[in-house]
């Protein structure tokens, strides 16, 4: 192959070929069968290379003009909705991970992480391997220190079990990352001389200001209830055992840290090593939520927050850190002010600017994108994600395609313009939605669910009129998979006064029906339905309201293509449902977002998704 021909192919497949170049390529392909084969080979290579690459991507900006238009529209609404965040002039960082560390024994506790030089106001960088300083025994005070400060020696660790191994051998292995300086050798190791005491660390005491719910101090394996005014030493861990637990602490410089429910802090300290400098505030957050307002820190002593996946360096800002344990966990960063670098150990980094967020998980590098809290949705087993503020292909005023954001390419489509739902720019909380007329509008999307043992569907919608769902209750559904065998239907059908839903397992039973305590009329609501083992559970606004037990294990048999805006009818008899014929019944209402997972999300994953949707569409 000549380079010229190769370049032509390359440019064409990159969408960069001019009409003239395309003509040239066409002429060459017409005259040279071998080039056709090379071209076919290049096509196959591109498809494979794309498939081999990550599915997490930002697609919309490079799409068709119509889609770019839709993106701009949605971007405008996102901006307005996100204004309070920006006005807060703060940074939010979210990290999600699981509890292999939580289950660690005290001897497995990793060493303290010392601060590395930082490049910006806040930066995620590699964990350091500097040995952890141990606390001094209570009451022991270095004579040269100002009142209220304490000195500690590593050898004076009264709070931990004694490990007979040398200090370096006690250190846990840490992930190796590029660009990081090698850890300094202990002096005694370098010289071969007997170990000598390291310089004294100055520890500025941390005290507990406020406690709510179950909060415990972990010390040498002991777990004791925390008290207001109690000092927290570097050897202390903290455990917040309830969802409603809350703990607030203030550092001597006024930096305020709040830890929220179901969190664990392994280490927390504010120290300085005289003559060495590079220490400061350090928090080792295993899981949970940490919010902080950080005063301006010395340039060589940034506040460092370590998670099992990353390190966050803060010079001065306010932020929130959420760590939710799990092997499939992720670290999420949302920036309200300034620019933050998010780094995956051994992987790539992303500079995340104000108004953007990025996520890191095992094997997943960060990609900065507009911030709306939606990165909690990027989880394994996400089957379908339709959001009206992104990926809507508008055909005049109606929607011909609602692009799937899950990365699975399961776009919801409707080719017949008369049956396309209407695009509403500002339907709920200033955000767009699709309106289905209840007559014949619907979209279909390929998304097989047959055989699933668990499934979770989130739906943000409103219903414009009460419809019964027909004789079997499975009509007029907002989200619907038609059965391929009896009692195999999967559906969600909220109405003003009821919610009908069903996960068909082949069992002969009626559609599950939850009567609302009062009509919500045409108001939007968040409906979550979940098949979890033998239970089919309904949550409204994030609260469980109904649970149908006794279900068989798997979803029995559904058609592979699901539908939005259309429910079941009686195709055999063309029975009339609510004035509809033709064997289908339609949903009269609006849909703003639909998220489908192919498994039952545990509470630690379901709740963040619901919080994302609630804050997006229902924030007061």
């Amino acid at each position, binding site marked *: 192959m000549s380079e010229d021909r190769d370049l032509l192919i390359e440019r064409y497949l990159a969408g960069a070929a001019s009409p003239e170049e395309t003509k040239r390529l066409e002429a060459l392909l017409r005259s040279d069968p071998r080039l056709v*084969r090379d071209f076919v080979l290049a096509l196959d290579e591109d498809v494979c290379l794309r498939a081999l690459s990550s599915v997490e991507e930002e697609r919309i900006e490079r*799409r068709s003009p119509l889609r770019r238009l839709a993106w701009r529209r949605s971007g405008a609404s996102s901006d307005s909705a996100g204004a309070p965040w920006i006005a807060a002039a703060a940074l939010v960082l979210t990290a999600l991970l699981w509890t292999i560390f939580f289950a660690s024994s005290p001897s497995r506790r990793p060493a303290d992480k010392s601060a590395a030089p930082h490049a910006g106001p806040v930066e995620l960088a590699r964990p350091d391997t500097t040995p952890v300083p141990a606390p001094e025994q209570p009451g022991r005070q270095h004579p040269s220190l100002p009142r209220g400060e304490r000195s500690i020696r590593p050898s004076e660790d009264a709070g931990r079990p004694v490990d007979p191994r040398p200090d370096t051998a006690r250190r846990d292995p840490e992930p190796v990352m590029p660009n990081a300086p090698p850890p300094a050798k202990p002096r005694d190791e370098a010289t071969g001389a007997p170990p000598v005491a390291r310089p004294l660390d100055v520890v500025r005491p941390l005290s507990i200001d406020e406690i709510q719910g179950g909060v415990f101090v972990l010390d040498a394996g002991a777990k004791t209830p925390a008290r207001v005014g109690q000092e927290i030493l570097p050897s202390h861990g903290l455990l917040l055992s309830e969802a409603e637990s809350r703990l607030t602490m203030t550092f001597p410089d006024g930096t305020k840290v709040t830890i929220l429910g179901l969190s664990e802090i392994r280490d927390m300290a504010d120290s300085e090593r005289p003559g060495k400098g590079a220490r400061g505030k350090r928090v080792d957050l295993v899981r949970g939520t940490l919010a902080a307002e950080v005063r301006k820190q010395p340039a060589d002593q940034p506040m460092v927050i370590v998670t099992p996946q990353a390190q966050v360096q803060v010079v001065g800002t306010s932020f929130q850190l959420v760590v939710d344990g799990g092997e499939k966990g992720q670290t999420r960063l949302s920036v309200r002010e300034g620019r933050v670098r998010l780094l995956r150990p051994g992987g790539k980094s992303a500079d995340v600017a104000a108004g953007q967020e990025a996520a890191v998980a095992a094997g997943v590098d960060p990609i900065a994108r507009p911030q709306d809290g939606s990165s909690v949705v990027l989880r394994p087993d996400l089957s379908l994600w339709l959001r009206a503020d992104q990926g809507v292909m508008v055909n005049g005023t109606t929607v011909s395609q609602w692009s799937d954001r899950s990365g699975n390419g399961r776009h919801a489509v409707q080719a017949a313009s008369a049956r396309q739902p209407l695009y509403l720019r500002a339907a709920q909380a200033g955000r767009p939605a699709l309106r289905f007329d209840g007559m014949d509008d619907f979209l279909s999307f*390929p998304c097989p669910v047959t055989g699933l043992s668990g499934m979770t569907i989130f739906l943000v919608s409103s219903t414009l009129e009460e419809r019964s769902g027909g004789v079997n209750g499975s009509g007029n559904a907002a989200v619907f998979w038609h059965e391929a065998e009896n009692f195999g239907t999967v559906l969600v059908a909220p109405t003003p006064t009821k919610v009908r839903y069903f996960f068909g397992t082949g069992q002969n039973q009626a559609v599950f029906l939850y009567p609302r305590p009062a009509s919500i009329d045409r108001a939007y609501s968040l409906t979550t339905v979940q098949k979890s083992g033998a239970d089919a559970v309904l949550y409204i606004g994030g609260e469980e309201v109904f649970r149908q037990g006794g279900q068989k294990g798997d979803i029995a048999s559904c058609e592979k293509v699901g539908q939005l805006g259309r429910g079941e009818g009686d195709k055999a008899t063309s029975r009339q449902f609510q004035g509809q014929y033709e064997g289908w019944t339609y949903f009269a209402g609006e849909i703003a977002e639909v998220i489908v997972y192919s498994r039952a999300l545990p509470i630690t994953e379901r709740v963040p998704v619901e919080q994302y949707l609630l804050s997006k569409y229902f924030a007061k």
Partner: protein
Amino acid sequence: MKSSTEQRRFLQKFVSGERLLMGYLLSATGDFHEAEDLLQEVSVALWESFDRYDESKAFHAWALGIARHKVLDWREKQGRRGATLSPEILDLVGQAQLETADRLSDRRPLLQTCIEALPDHLRKIVQLRYREQLTLEALSERLDRSAGAVQVALVRIRRTLRDCVDQKLGPLAEAGR
């Protein structure tokens, strides 16, 4: 209503031909995102007309026939005829795809190994081009190299990968071309 057996049969066939279809649509659009969107439409159309599929005929050929119609519709809507290959050439491409389908499938598993064997700087370009899906212009900016240099690098990467796969295939390689 289609039976579950029919669904499984469809799925099996569709999956076996999905990459071929995607390649065809990529050749028609010259744009990966457009091709993905079209693939979506084609998959729905295939499913909806699967009742009419004649088992005695090759699925890939039938599927390409439906894809061809979708491409023609798309061309009408997009008005991008000048910058994309003509239907006549696409027919040639489709035909060549059908002829080489089996051999192409031999190459695919080897590609991953060959990507891993690329030097870091070339693998980075692959990631930017295919994972982040940067345009040539954006790629040029990101790498701080001229557009021409980037294109030449992409051509060389493709050659390197192709040679690597050929080497692993051995005598079968030439037949796969």
